[in-house]
């Protein structure tokens, strides 16, 4: 072997070694996690990989990012073949892949993607240095730019290498199939530098090989490990609906949830190595924006460190969460996110929904909450609410008999679904029943249903809190008690479908309750939409308002219901101006995840609801913020007062607008 070849072999060897060591270290770290089934719903998983792993639909939500990433991605994908060829050429000069007639198109493809890849890299560098979108600024730019320069070097050296070859022997270098390299070759000749080609070729070859294999050795130690792990991450992600939490496995019943790295599943841990540090999660996080310590991106990054750590600060023996219990390695509350940060989450799903590699930050937060709740280390306000829920079936510390107080207003005749068969079981919900501000909305709803001839009934005092947020604060035992009670009560009734005005209730009934009678679970806007389209609900007037609409988290992001409420609003004749952050980008009101029950979270400087009403009030000429959730109604009504916007912005539930237009 020549010296060159020895050197090449050395580079290959060292680079491969670094690469393998790192990948194996990661795999070993990830395997610390608990088992998780990954072979179910195989077809769905494969589909996910194709649509989201390879075609990366989600990155296109932000068009420039989608384009530049596609350019770089496809450059990597196609140039893989050229790597084989180029390295082999180091041992067997003039080696080409034995692809026969496919060689031509392949070279064409490589040439084009290399050029596009360069464009992509330049776009990326521009974003990081000039346009500076906020979410990319959460982590330093230096490492990212160095990486981009490496990629640039790899791509440019590839093109120049082929350009040099073309200058020397256009035919052998398949110049016909390499338009971009050909262009460069022509430029070189035109500039009178054709003479450098014999020297340029090996030089570019070495630059290419060196930069490539340095990149190969280095990238798995950085966030670019997503190159390896993202596709797997997409494959392994849970196939069920976002709105369905997984129950505590029976073998973990004695100590549920996650306190250490070993309490999360390996799929969950894999997330940390698919994370690209893109910042979309933190950028859209309402808890983070309000000043709390929650930071989904850093949660992932610290988790990554915790998975790989051994014997480091994160696993000091004796270090523990609040109660002095024993710690296994990688105490999540010390190493990843503190209890305060964990409690500040509103479970709005913006992080998971925004993540292009389909990481699930929320499931970790929820597992950590299960751990805290099991030890009673809960936010003080939460204790009162949970004890009230456990005892009275509602969080208001009110007697179950008062649940139906709203039915006694005026001339409402509400049927009892326990006695009469009806079409719709109306699961009213806690806030709609007990909160004085929401009771009016519930009455409106009953009247509209009556007007439209909907056959409905309610469970009266047999209805307990559906348990959505109870589950999401980690009280799985209480959730099961509530769910089992409600399911029993419903089993004894005769009805077709369930309808509710509360998106939280909707979410858990639809995704987490056993379905005994095969009917649907509808949000009231979905029902109204159907009634309007079938002509059973008609309006006598058009409302002349200029309004905006807030997409509730549990209706929109969790369950994909964006259009039904908008169709209802359109039918009312209002002029709808979209919120700057609408649909899947909707900014949470701050009530979810049990936050509405909790006491102050430290660090909070501005409440999400205040920020959201200001966002609405800033819209030109908009006087009404329409909502479709009782908790949104409560939160925004308070926020309007606190922000001093009483004269300028009205909060109205869609049902109020519907009744007005009847």
């Amino acid at each position, binding site marked *: 072997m020549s010296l060159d070849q020895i050197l090449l072999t050395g580079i290959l060897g060292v680079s491969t070694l670094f690469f393998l060591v790192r990948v194996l270290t990661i795999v070993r770290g990830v395997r610390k996690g608990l088992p998780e089934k990954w072979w179910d719903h195989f077809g769905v998983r494969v589909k996910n990989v194709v649509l989201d792993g390879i075609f990366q639909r989600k990155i296109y939500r932000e068009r420039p990012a989608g384009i530049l990433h596609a350019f770089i991605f496809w450059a990597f994908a196609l140039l893989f073949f050229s790597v084989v060829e180029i390295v082999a050429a180091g041992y067997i000069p003039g080696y080409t892949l034995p692809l026969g007639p496919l060689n031509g198109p392949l070279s064409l493809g490589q040439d084009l993607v290399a050029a596009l890849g360069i464009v992509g890299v330049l776009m990326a560098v521009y974003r990081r240095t000039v346009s500076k979108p906020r979410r990319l600024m959460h982590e330093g730019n230096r490492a990212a730019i160095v990486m981009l320069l490496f990629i640039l070097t790899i791509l440019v050296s590839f093109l120049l290498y082929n350009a040099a070859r073309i200058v020397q022997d256009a035919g052998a270098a398949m110049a016909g199939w390499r338009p971009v390299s050909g262009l460069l070759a022509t430029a070189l000749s035109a500039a009178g530098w054709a003479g450098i080609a014999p020297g340029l070729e090996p030089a570019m070859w070495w630059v290419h090989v060196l930069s490539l294999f340095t990149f190969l050795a280095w990238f798995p130690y950085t966030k670019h490990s997503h190159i390896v792990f993202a596709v797997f991450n997409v494959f392994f992600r849970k196939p069920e609906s976002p709105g369905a939490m997984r129950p505590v496995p029976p073998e973990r019943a004695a100590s*549920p949830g996650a306190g250490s790295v070993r309490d999360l599943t390996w799929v969950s841990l894999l997330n940390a190595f698919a994370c690209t540090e893109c910042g979309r999660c933190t950028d859209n996080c309402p808890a983070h924006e309000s000043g709390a310590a929650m930071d989904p991106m850093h949660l992932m990054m610290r988790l990554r460190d915790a998975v790989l750590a051994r014997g480091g600060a994160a696993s000091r023996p004796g270090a523990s969460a609040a109660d002095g219990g024993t710690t296994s390695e990688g105490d999540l509350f010390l190493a990843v996110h503190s209890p305060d940060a964990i409690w500040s989450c509103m479970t709005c799903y913006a992080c998971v929904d925004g993540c292009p590699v389909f990481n699930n930050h929320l499931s970790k937060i929820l597992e950590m909450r299960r751990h805290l709740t099991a030890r*009673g280390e809960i936010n003080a306000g939460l204790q009162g609410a*949970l*004890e009230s829920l456990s*005892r009275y079936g509602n969080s208001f510390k009110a*007697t179950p008999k008062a649940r139906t107080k709203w039915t006694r207003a005026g001339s409402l005749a509400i049927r009892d679904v326990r006695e009469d068969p009806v079409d719709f079981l109306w699961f009213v919900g806690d806030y709609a029943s007990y909160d004085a501000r929401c009771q009016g909305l519930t009455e409106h709803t009953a009247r509209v249903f009556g007007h439209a001839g909907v056959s409905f009934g309610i469970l009266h005092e047999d209805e307990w809190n559906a348990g959505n947020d109870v589950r999401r604060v980690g*009280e799985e035992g209480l959730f099961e008690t509530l769910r089992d009670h409600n399911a029993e009560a419903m089993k004894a009734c005769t009805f077709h479908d369930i309808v509710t005005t509360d998106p939280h209730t909707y979410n858990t009934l639809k995704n987490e309750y056993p379905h005994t009678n095969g009917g649907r679970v509808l949000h009231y806007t979905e029902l109204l939409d159907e009634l309007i389209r079938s002509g059973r609900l008609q309006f006598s007037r058009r409302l002349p308002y200029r309004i905006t609409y807030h997409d509730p988290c549990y209706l929109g992001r969790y369950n994909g219901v964006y259009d039904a409420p908008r169709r209802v609003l359109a039918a009312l004749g209002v002029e709808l101006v979209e919120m700057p952050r609408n649909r899947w980008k909707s900014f949470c009101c701050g009530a979810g995840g049990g936050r509405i029950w909790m006491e102050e979270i430290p660090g909070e400087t501005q409440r999400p609801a205040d920020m959201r009403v200001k966002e609405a009030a800033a819209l030109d000429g908009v006087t009404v913020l329409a909502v479709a959730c009782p908790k949104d109604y409560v939160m925004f009504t308070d926020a309007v007062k606190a922000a001093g916007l009483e004269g300028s912005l009205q909060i109205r539930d869609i049902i109020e607008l519907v009744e007005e237009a009847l």
Partner: protein
Amino acid sequence: MKIAVILRQVPDVVEELVIAEDGRSLAEDEVMDITNEADEHALEEALILKARHAATVTAVGVGGNEAKDALAAAVAKGADDAIFVPIPFKHRGDNVRLASVLSPAMKSGGYDLILTGIWAADQLDAGLAGLLSMRLSIPYVGGVTSISLEPDGTKGIVRKEFPGGRLGVMETSLPAVYGIQSAEQPPRYVPVSRVVQAKRTLRVKEQSEPPEVVVGMRAAKLIKSSSAAKAEMLPGDATQVAEQLVRILRERGIA
């Protein structure tokens, strides 16, 4: 060190209270029982002492069958033993009688410390803690908000709340009875799954009433206080309202 905590079931005032036909008691089938709040604090204080001094805590549940649920919750929180003392409905709230029912078991139990709430929601007579201490001839301090015990278990030092935010520091020998005003930290939360588990595995010693029981007094009449659903609205302009207000405040001895 052995600590006993007496947990009484009292009527839950969140629910509607219904007077029985005899006009001097509550209607038994309408009453929902809840553990007396001050007794919850007593249990919390006992558990705090248990953690500090490696003591055992015996929870004594007094009342109807709901007392057994309270015992399960107490065990789930960390109590070591559970004793159920059923009390017929018509005798609930009678602390004189309760003291005579409990004293034999409290005496024979060999407890170093007996804790209970300083008052019960349904109490009409003197507090249980004081009466119990007299029957057992052991020291008593009420209104306690914190306890510290000598390591050899012979003395207890308590802080007792006095009016005006003052605190009295007092020392007694042990065994003693302390009436708890509030524990050093709010009663802890115990997850539902743990209580459900405790209910399933609960082993309760049931204690029947001793032959000699003293009966205290009962109300001659019981009525619901006239709490109208809404406030009594004061008519007139600002001056007239102010005058009426001052009159009301003076009647109540507030201004």
